[in-house]
């Protein structure tokens, strides 16, 4: 395997006496599609929060392209190439769809505050570029006709899509999706499955996702890590995970495992 684009080395998160995540290691290749599953409260979102800098791990390091990003601030980590979506959608609700996407391009904009006050040529050039890039992305995600709508007025499924589009607008190397199928019906989940695979192929990025919906995870992920009580309990391809007794135990309890035997 070539050098992983994202690597975590034994990251641990303690909140007082509670160990939310213990010694979690993971390697993600440049175009890998990997899932993290586990029961509620297993520490999946905490892993995301450590990778994206919202929490600083108590122990362990996070590397992006071999560079240590453990101590960086969230904004800086995004600028280095990791972007995420949130379990409970976090769009800029009172801004338009276009503005949501344009904000993701903010840190690459090359004009100062004074340029925007005095409307210099650079301001117009850069703003035109932002709009053009946003248009392209909105076109891909089928949201172009709604670009002037406020984000809060979009239907739920489109808000999810917009959030993914917004994350992609930061031009990440690694995309983290936190329960992208939460609250979706089977049809929408099926569309999302296609979309996620398509995004990976089209943008050539690595995707790491947390999900409860097994149909999505088993269909889309090439490799799956299962965590329970902050511990990695199993990892492997979808087939291995489905038949792994530890995983079944974590989800259904020890009795269920006994019954299958």
């Amino acid at each position, binding site marked *: 395997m070539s050098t992983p684009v994202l690597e975590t080395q034994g990251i641990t998160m303690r909140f007082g006496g509670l160990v939310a995540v213990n010694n979690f290691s993971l390697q993600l290749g440049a175009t890998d599609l990997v899932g993290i599953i586990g029961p509620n409260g297993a520490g999946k979102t905490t892993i995301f929060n450590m990778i994206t800098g919202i929490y600083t791990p108590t122990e362990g390091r996070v590397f992006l392209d071999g560079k240590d990003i453990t101590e960086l601030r969230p904004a800086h980590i995004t600028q280095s190439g990791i972007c995420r979506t949130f379990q409970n959608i976090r769009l*800029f609700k009172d*801004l338009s769809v276009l503005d949501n996407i344009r*904000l*993701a391009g903010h840190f690459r904009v090359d*004009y100062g505050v004074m340029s925007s*006050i005095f409307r210099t040529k650079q301001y117009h050039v850069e703003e035109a570029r*932002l709009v053009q890039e946003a248009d392209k992305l909105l076109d891909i995600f089928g949201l172009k006709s709604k670009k002037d709508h406020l984000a809060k007025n979009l239907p739920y499924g489109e808000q999810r899509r917009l959030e993914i589009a917004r994350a992609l607008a*930061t031009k990440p190397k690694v995309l983290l999706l936190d329960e992208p199928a939460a609250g979706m019906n089977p049809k929408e989940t099926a569309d999302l499955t296609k979309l996620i695979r398509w995004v990976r192929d089209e943008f050539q990025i690595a995707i790491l996702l947390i999900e409860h919906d097994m149909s999505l995870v088993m269909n889309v992920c090439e490799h799956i890590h299962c965590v329970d009580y902050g511990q990695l309990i199993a990892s492997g391809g979808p087939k291995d995970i489905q038949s792994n007794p530890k995983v079944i135990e974590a989800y259904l309890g020890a009795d269920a495992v006994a019954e299958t035997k």
Partner: protein
Amino acid sequence: MDYLIYLTIQSGIFIILAVSLNLINGICGQFSLGHAGFWAVGAYVGAAYSVFAPLPVPDFVNLFIGCGLGFTAAAIAGLAIGVPCLRLRGDYLAIATLGFGEIIRIIIMNMDAVGGPRGFTGIPAWSNFFWVYLWVIITIVFVVNLLRGTHGRAIISIREDEIAAESMGIYTFKYKVMAFAVGAGFAGVAGVLFAHTTQFIHPNSFNFMWSVIILLMIILGGLGSVTGAVVGAVILSILPELLRFFGETVSEWRMVIYSMLLICLMLMRPSGIFGKHELDIKKLLGMKKGDA
């Protein structure tokens, strides 16, 4: 007639204060209650300049230099207060800024060079209708143009969702401090103009109540709307005066009526007159279709 001109000038000063506080409270979403403090910094710095060390240039140039100094001093005060305070959120930030606003007032109260509790007298009357409204226009153009650029959008995104903004690669702290300092700076300019209109300033002219009244203006107009801030400032600075003219009974009860009107308005339109929207001439004429 003089009275009317004075009222108009006063509204202009309040427009600058409301628009600048709106940048902090309404647009960036950082609840500040210390605006009168920055207003005071501007007023005293501007007044001290024109009383103690005016340059031998025409008055209006001196006024302009005074405004520049007032802006700088208030913006520096904004930075000094913003950097520690903006790590706090919501109510905590409001209380911290309130405290700092009062600290500024008490410091001035104890500075003998600028009159201390006796007030600062002998300030030249350089300000007039024209200069005040020139600064009103400068303030509004500055804020509106800022909002239409990427930096302004970054400031708005902090109000919308700070965590999301940070994870979109926006240095939220930097933009919070920036909004705070710029807002404070323009409040400083309002202070300079105020000092050169009334010719006499007293630390108590900048007490906590004024922070609340400026806050009322932007809540009335609609938090986050520049148009709303302007309208709110005009209404709240004219209304108490206007009520004087409706006979003796109304005049006696004017502060009660004023409060009742505010309560009614907040009941009927809790998001303020304009909400988060701007007055858009194209939309009014039906030339543009929007979502909103």
